[in-house]
């Protein structure tokens, strides 16, 4: 009598080999990572000390410096998201194989989108600080350039999944290409479009808070200053402000998404 097994011996072997490789990787990392034992033993005490210095937060510090930086952060995130769409929509149209029939253009657009996604927004910020100098302009461009790949990829995927029926019907009436896109493709991808826009705006709110650490404007600059001066009660105020804004943005996005989609 043969016992039923879910996987063939070969499948089981590869499975175990994959798990084994992961364990080996972990063992290698733990053995080789450079951790100073004194720091590790000291860590809980130091953390408690830091928290004690942060409490109570110096809320008097909020207005005007933190408030203005926070508003600047919101502008960077929103403007960066808008700017990303200006580049991402044409790239998505070029990358979608059912919209743009030229394979070379598809591949080129995909390459640009992948490049934009593989560089982190903080690294984009470093690059744009080198180009535009420190300030909100660098931050806005960093947010925009990181978002292009994300938005473009998701929009291109949404475009490739649409039903060809409405497009063909419009083409049969002799409608020009712009009308085919506007009245055939747009209604089909509108929910995905708004979903992606809101999702990315939410992410950008979080990311724009740290851009200031490399000099790209926003609340990160104030945070960096407060940390460098060891004003921990101010740091706590700034962190609280970021936390509140991030949570409010998430609530807002959830509400808007429920209404739009």
């Amino acid at each position, binding site marked *: 009598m043969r016992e039923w097994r879910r996987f063939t011996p070969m499948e089981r072997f590869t499975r175990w080999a994959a798990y084994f490789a992961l364990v080996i990787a972990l063992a290698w990392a733990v053995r080789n990572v450079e951790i*100073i034992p004194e720091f590790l033993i000291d860590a809980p005490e130091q953390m408690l000390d830091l928290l004690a210095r942060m409490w109570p937060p110096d809320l008097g510090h909020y207005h005007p410096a933190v408030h203005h930086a926070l508003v600047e952060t919101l502008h960077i995130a929103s*403007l960066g998201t808008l700017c990303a769409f200006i580049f991402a929509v044409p790239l998505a149209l070029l990358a979608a194989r059912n919209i743009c029939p030229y394979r070379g253009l598809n591949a080129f657009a995909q390459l640009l989108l992948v490049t934009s996604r593989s560089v982190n927004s903080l690294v984009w910020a470093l690059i744009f600080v080198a180009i535009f100098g420190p300030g909100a302009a660098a931050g*806005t461009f960093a947010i925009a350039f990181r978002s292009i790949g994300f938005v473009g990829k998701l929009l291109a995927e949404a475009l490739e999944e649409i039903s060809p029926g409405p497009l063909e019907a419009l083409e049969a009436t002799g409608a020009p290409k712009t009308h085919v896109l506007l009245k055939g493709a747009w209604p089909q991808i509108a929910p995905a479009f708004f979903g992606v826009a809101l999702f990315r705006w939410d992410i950008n709110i979080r990311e724009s808070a740290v851009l200031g*650490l490399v000099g790209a404007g926003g609340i990160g600059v104030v945070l960096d200053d407060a940390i460098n001066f060891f004003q921990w009660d101010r740091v706590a105020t700034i962190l609280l402000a970021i936390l509140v804004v991030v949570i409010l943005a998430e609530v807002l996005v959830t509400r808007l998404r429920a209404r739009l989609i």
Partner: protein
Amino acid sequence: MSASTLHRRAFPPNWGARATGLGLVVYAIYALAQLDITWARLRIGFGEAGRFIARMWPPNFSRAELLIEGLLESLQIAVIASALGILLALPLGLMAARNLAPWPLAVATRGFVAFCRSLHYVIVAILFVKAIGFGALAGVAALTIASMGFIAKLFAEAIEEISMKQVEAIRATGASFGAVLVYGVLPQVASRFIGFSLYQLDSNLRNSTLVGIVGAGGIGGTLFAAFKRFDYDFVAAILLTIIALIFVAELISGWIRALLR
């Protein structure tokens, strides 16, 4: 049939959408003014961008030793942080699932998990650098917090979607809580949990190349130092290496995912 239905316009204008679009344009102009982004400034920037790219070429790989050392440390940080995050997320995910845990516990755990996710990992990394010193340990701690929050949230949502029939069947046999978990709950969510974990390992690899910017170990420190010294050809080499690493990691994780399916 009345005349009004006969002459109904096929595509009536959507005034709500037009007003929203106009609002966004007005906001963009206002935000551009607030952030002091002007055409003159952008023109100077484009000139600088040309010089910047010219100085990046050709990438300088002569300090490959430094590059590989930083990259390996990033890899170690990513692997350890992922392992710790996954381990911690398992109990947290169970505690946050409203269909298994009593509701006060679920609400409290959800709050904690949401708190872990709402601060950007670079900000968490700064706090850990200040609390436990420079080096890989701070990076590991920061990425562990982020991974824990992310996996625990998705894991809890996956558990809430399971079928309770199997859980009840195991409970009816008089099995202990541990046995219910192992035979009733985990088989239903194991594959999704592995999926989240692999995704998090992927994003930890990207993020671990960055935490070094604030001194938390890995190649980010080398990158930031090269930026500060205007060694743009070395910057280009580091960026190319990071992109290559991310690309390889994506290939490997896609391969593992296919194996485990």
